[in-house]
């Protein structure tokens, strides 16, 4: 099982998972009871126009054919056309991907930067009051819903102190000019509300990963040969703990994406979440299908990357003998 083969297998599994996920999404939207055309036109609509709409949207074709054409289209970026505006879904989705991507990536980086030291502190000093405070803080952060944190931040910083706008979003580049100030101003509160939750979740995993490392024999050996507790942690602890922390970062991304969808509503940010929710209320199911597919695709890509990074960090896997 050399490295090449392991990577090939992981890619195969990724492709298969993507296919299964797309089938699941398609089936939930199209196979469940309730006819899409009548739903769009409203239940009172006369059967003739309903039938005519079904024809236009191609809903009369068998399920499998429609699924295959959807997947076929997706492979070269065509997510189909909106039932309402007939606008290509990918055109509608593309600009919003960047918005949500900014929110998620910055939040992920910040929560990792906050969680690593917090988690390490909580682990190394677990028997002292600092350790207790650190783990209590992450415990509380874990329990607050992201949108509630958002609202609280708005009440304090926007309504109360007027430091930051309560909602809205400005692109980094608007008509060619760079607008970093406004761009960041609008992102501070949304990112903060996501980071409070994500950093706490991550800190708990970092803490347990480091507590596990602290109890390992090789950590005791490191101290026995002359490293102090903190130096031993940096030289031997971080790489070993990274193995379990990396998987968590992958898993957390799915929840972070979801958090972003909700936070977008609190701050009225025109991201994928907003587009998805309006598509749901307009019952523009092809758009719903497309956006959910994009989100799931993002998560599966990240899981693939975390799996592969596993190989880089843990030599035991590289040696061919998978753990």
């Amino acid at each position: 099982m050399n490295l090449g083969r392991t990577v090939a297998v992981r890619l195969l599994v990724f492709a298969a998972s993507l296919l299964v996920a797309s089938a699941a999404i398609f089936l939930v939207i199209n196979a469940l009871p309730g006819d899409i055309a009548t739903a769009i036109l409203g239940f009172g609509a006369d059967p003739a126009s309903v039938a005519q709409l079904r024809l236009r949207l191609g809903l009369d074709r068998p399920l499998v054919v429609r699924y295959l054409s959807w997947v076929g289209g997706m492979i070269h970026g065509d997510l189909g056309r909106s039932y309402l505006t007939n606008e290509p879904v990918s055109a509608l989705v593309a600009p919003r991907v960047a918005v949500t991507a900014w929110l998620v990536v910055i939040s992920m980086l910040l929560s990792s930067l906050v969680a690593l030291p917090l988690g390490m502190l909580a682990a190394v000093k677990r028997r002292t009051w600092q350790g207790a405070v650190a783990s209590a803080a992450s415990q509380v952060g874990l329990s607050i819903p992201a949108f509630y944190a958002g609202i609280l931040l708005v009440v304090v910083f926007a309504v109360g102190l007027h430091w930051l706008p309560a909602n809205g979003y400005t692109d980094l580049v608007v008509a060619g000019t760079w607008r970093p100030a406004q761009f960041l101003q609008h992102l501070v509160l949304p990112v903060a509300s996501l980071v409070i939750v994500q950093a706490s979740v991550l800190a708990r995993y970092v803490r347990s990963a480091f507590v596990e490392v602290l109890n390992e024999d090789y950590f005791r050996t490191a101290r026995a040969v002359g490293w102090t507790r903190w130096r031993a942690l940096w030289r031997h602890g971080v790489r070993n703990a990274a193995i379990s922390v990396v998987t968590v970062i992958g898993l957390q991304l799915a929840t972070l994406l979801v958090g972003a969808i909700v936070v977008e509503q609190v701050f009225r940010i025109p991201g994928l979440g907003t587009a998805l929710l309006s598509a749901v209320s307009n019952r523009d199911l092809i758009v719903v299908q497309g956006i959910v597919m994009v989100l799931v695709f993002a998560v599966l890509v990240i899981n693939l990357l975390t799996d592969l990074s596993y190989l880089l960090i843990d030599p035991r896997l590289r040696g061919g003998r998978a753990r």
Partner: protein
Amino acid sequence: MRRAGLWTGVFLVALVILAALVSLVWTPYNPLQVQPSQTLRPAGWPHLLGTDGFGIDILSRLLVGARTTVYVGVVAVSLAALGGVPLGILAGMLGGWVSQVVLRVTDILYAFPALLLAILLAAAVGASTTTAMVAIGIASIPAFARVARAATLIVMTQDYILAARASGTSRWTTSVRHVLPNIAAVLGVQASVSFGIAILAEAALSYLGLATPHPHPPWGRMLHDAQTYIFSAPVQALWPGLAIALSVLGLNLLGDGLRDHLDPRLREAA
């Protein structure tokens, strides 16, 4: 210090359940009765926590809101446990390709957090508390499956499993008499953590209006309504969010407390 965490957890969870039960028989005011003349009154007397935009007593709405929280949490977690645990035990005991299939399926399911699943269901069959519960339940199956599988794998390495087989105990009896009791504590930890996640998901769904048509609006919906008066009466937006956070905190502390009583070997599976 650990003990304190466990008991705070138990206290908070008991408080939420008590609120749900009390609201079945009594609430300070009628939680459905709109009083246009009494809108946005501050906390104090007679409305302990004040009134919301519709003039309804906030405390009463919180009490009945607890009902949905407990109801959705219990149903979703039971659905997830019923779906995930047998799968996890099967994967842990049979190993080989069964184990790999279960792992792959849970990986894919992990890409569908509760909210995404609920959005899909809402789009397909319309939003309701039932679709929310089903979505949260299905989305929590992988967590139970993974924990049950990890704990079962550890139990399967113990010699008492081999000893059972050597004394003629069938595989089915072994799973019920030996595996389940030994992983029960780990599942207990997962249940409380999943309950907390379910509450957060339900709150998000009702905040987004994807789970409301329940007679009494859940806490998430209250938070959504409160947001429209954020500038005029910001304080009343605190209470529903606080109720959500405290119940989730209670469940997480309960989970942590239980995890510390676990047999050290099983602790890393939790």
